[in-house]
């Protein structure tokens, strides 16, 4: 029982904290992109490619975390470990 509740909390934290970081990162970068596009519109196309590249890089850690958290939430691997423990 304890394990299930801890894993549920952990899954929430993994997704939540990851989302905080990724959102702040994307927000700062998007803001800077708009700023620089406003300053030098002729660079927009070039910067857009780089922005998407970085958006993917920033998002990656968060999405990996989400995947792991969902895996824990749906098919909890720790329960099997506990079942295998010598009594």
């Amino acid at each position, binding site marked *: 029982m304890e394990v299930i509740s801890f894993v549920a909390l952990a899954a929430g934290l993994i997704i939540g904290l990851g989302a905080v970081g990724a959102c702040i990162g994307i927000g700062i970068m998007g803001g800077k992109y708009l700023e620089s596009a406003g300053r030098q519109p002729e660079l927009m196309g070039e910067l857009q490619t780089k922005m*998407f590249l970085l958006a993917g890089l920033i998002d990656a850690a968060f999405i990996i975390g989400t995947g792991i958290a969902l895996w824990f939430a749906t098919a909890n691997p720790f329960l099997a470990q506990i079942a295998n423990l010598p009594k």
Partner: protein
Amino acid sequence: MAAQGTETHAPSAGEYIVHHLQHLQTGKQSAVVDFSVVNVDSVFYAVTLGVIGCWLLWLAARKATSGVPGRFQAAVEFLVEMVDSQAKGIVHSAQSRKLVAPLALTVFIWIFMMNAMDLLPVDLLPQLWHVTEPAHGLPNYMRVVPTADLSITMGLSLSVLLLCLYYNVKIKGLGGWVHELFSAPFGDKWFLYPVNFLMQLVEFVAKTVSHGMRLFGNMYAGELIFMLIALMGGAFAFTGTGIALAIGHVIAGTAWAIFHILIITLQAFIFMMLTLIYVGQAHDAH
């Protein structure tokens, strides 16, 4: 959708997910790294999609005209030009670009097609496999997204690492590269050699691991979320909650699939760009 193994008993949510995360393997995997096991499904889909991708590009090249291009030719030309301009910006040696630019194009199209397997309904191919399975007596497992298999993505990133090592030796010479391994990034002093070498090792390992893990993680998470959405629809029943779940399934499935179109393209693009960047780095002397 969640009809796997309904003859015996309806699988629970956990069982359904675990079943769908099992590869069709040649044996039982005993350790985290086990080279005696082959994930047959991943290899099959990866090779098939690679062949289809090559065939499509060949088709475009064979029918290419210098006159007004058709839609298909225009699309392929746009793609080739996009990759070529990226390669020109990152890899400065025209000699290497002859190999690296087509490589980047292949990687982009191949990974995009492998990622796009995620957009098929999660149970479509596994269900077909399940129906025909008694005929050939193979285990009833099937995963259709090759890039959601760590073996495939790490294989790709290891090949990029090998290519980087090759270009390091080719451009700088074996002596030059070994010199760089020991004298960059901090400086050419004998007491800094161990630190420099350690930093270089960490850099190569981190590059390769993150390169493969990024693609794998994105696709794995995407696949898992599709499965969870499928579970929502699988809980359909003629009750208030059951109908609400089925409607939720359609809405969530649509939303996630549309968002996923962005993710699969972006991840294929990022993998291609990082391949170019890493190979480009191999050309730069520190």
